[in-house]
Structure formats: structure tokens, C-alpha cells
């Protein structure tokens, strides 16, 4: 899967520009992009940590779940957009290293699930700010969702780091 697209991308001018380490200006692209990526990961991680720990009843109890979520989610969405852009730059620079990589692929799947959970949070509190407070059964579901979400977010960072170590490109 994606081998054809990867091969096509690898031949593109963009890839050769982003991966050209012989000139300072182009050499700077990837470390700079990765630094911005890391800053945005931090913005997302602390926000989702607080939001999910609040739903678990562990932290952030000075504010309601709805207050915390509606304050933090715009930060999360903005950071996610920048993460997608910087992530795309890094992928274009080394298409095979990313697109054919099991770490990268599991990361994308986990991001899709966590983003879906975030959208559930946002749409439910829009309907009812106290949606997750009652009844007891729904509160339990909320806690399970929060625990799953936290584990997945951690998994995303782990998978992201592993991309550098599990190069699954076929031998040439």
C-alpha cells in the first residue's frame, strides 16, 4: 500500500529541495519543522492531558469539564493544523521513511481515533455542558473514553518517536 505514491513523491522536486542538506537554507527546513512540531505536540499533550484527567476526576477540578474543554480545544485544533503542515513537510522530505513505516501508520490511526473522541467531547458539551456528569452510567462511559484517549495520546508520541527506529522500507 502507498508504494506507488511514495515512489512518485520521492521523484518530486519538493522532496529533493526539503532533503537537500548541502545548503544551509534547505538544511534548516527539517530541524526547524521538527522543533515547531514538538512545540505543538506540547500544546496538544498538556491540553488533552488536562481535559481527559478532568473527565476522570483526577485534575483540573477547579473548572467544569465544559469550561476546560471549550477553552483548550481551540488551542488543540490550531496546534493540530500546524502539526499536520510540519508533519507533511517532514513526510515530503523523506516519503519512504514515513509512509511505509509501521510507526507512522499506527500513529495516523491513533490520531484519527483521538480526534474523533475530541469531536465527541465538543459536540456533547455543546448540547449539554453537564452531559458527562449524569447519569452514573454515562459518567462511567466518559471515564472509559478518557482513559482510552490518554493511552492513545501517549501511544501517538511513542509511535512518533519510533518512526526513527523502525525503518520498514524494503531493502533496495
Amino acid at each position: 500500500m502507498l508504494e506507488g505514491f511514495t515512489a512518485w513523491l520521492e521523484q518530486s522536486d519538493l522532496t529533493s529541495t526539503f532533503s537537500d542538506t548541502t545548503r544551509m537554507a534547505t538544511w534548516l527546513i527539517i530541524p526547524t519543522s521538527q522543533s515547531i512540531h514538538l512545540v505543538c505536540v506540547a500544546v496538544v499533550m498538556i491540553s488533552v492531558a488536562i481535559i481527559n484527567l478532568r473527565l476522570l476526576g483526577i485534575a483540573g477540578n477547579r473548572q467544569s469539564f465544559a469550561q476546560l474543554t471549550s477553552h483548550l480545544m481551540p488551542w488543540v485544533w490550531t496546534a493540530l493544523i500546524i502539526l499536520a503542515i510540519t508533519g507533511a513537510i517532514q513526510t515530503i522530505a523523506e516519503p519512504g521513511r514515513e509512509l511505509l513505516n509501521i510507526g507512522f501508520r499506527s500513529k495516523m490511526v491513533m490520531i484519527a481515533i483521538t480526534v474523533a473522541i475530541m469531536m465527541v467531547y465538543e459536540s456533547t458539551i455543546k448540547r449539554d455542558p453537564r452531559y458527562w456528569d449524569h447519569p452514573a452510567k454515562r459518567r462511567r462511559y466518559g471515564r472509559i473514553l478518557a482513559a482510552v484517549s490518554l493511552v492513545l495520546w501517549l501511544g501517538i508520541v511513542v509511535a512518533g518517536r519510533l518512526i526513527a527506529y523502525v525503518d520498514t522500507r524494503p531493502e533496495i
Partner: protein
Amino acid sequence: MNWLIGILQGINDSALADNIRGTVWVFPTIETVHIVAIVLVFGSITRLDLRLLGLVWRNRPVTEVAGEMLPFTWVAFVIAAIFGLLLWSSKPLSYFGIAFFDVKMILIVFAGTNMLYFQLITFKNVAQWDRDPVPPRAARLAGGLSLAIWLGVVFCARFIGFVQDAQ
């Protein structure tokens, strides 16, 4: 500088360093924990910095935001420091002469000094401005400095690996 290289070589040859290098998954695991921790340090401290600058949570008392964020910062910083030290000790010579590494360490000392000054002096009369949407200049300065310093730490950290590779 010969004595320093001797010390670094000694750390490099130690059993601990040997163990970290010896197994394929140990270094990446330590590195992952280090990154999760630094991400939480940066994420939490900058939330407080932004509050001190009057840019977020303006309706919340500064002490409330600090109480929510600083536990994350401290716990994560201790973990980041321990795991960072382990990473460094596995190949100390490879960080020798890397300017980004030196600057990163100096910036962390700056961040600590800035925080200490803030805690001991600026924060003393927090009761007077706790609920101010935009805190007084000294607090804004501490927040702005902290934000800039930690951004510098993250950029330096990311550049270390690239400069190492280029050598």
C-alpha cells in the same frame, strides 16, 4: 580540556553506558520517556507563562492556574532530567563540542533562575494581582522570559541530533 575528555571517556566506558548502548530498545525507550516528559514540562509551564502575560484564562486567578500546571511541570521536569542524564551518559563524547547542547544546558539554568526569582520575589505579593486579567510588569516579564527560554530549549534540543549526524 584533556581532563574533561578523560572524565567523559570514563562515563562512556562505564557499565551503565554500556548497558544503555548494549540493547537495541533501551536507548529509544529512554528517549521516548524523556520526550513525553519534556513535552509536558513545556506544555504546562507555558500555560502559566501565557496566563502571566495576560493572554489566556484571564478570568482565572493566577494561583489557580499555577496550582493546576506546576505539579505537571515539576514531576515531568524531574523525569526529563533523570532520563536526559541517562541518554547523555550513554554517549557523552558525542555531545562534547556541540554548541546547541551547551546552549540548551545554559538556557535550562536561566529558566530555573528566572523561576526562582519569580517564586521568591515577584510571587510574594501575588494576592494583590491574583485576579488581574493582565498581571503587573514584573510578572509579565517572568512569563515572557520563561516562554522564550523554553522555546529556545526545545529548538536547541531538536537541533542537537542534526548537528551530531552532520559530524
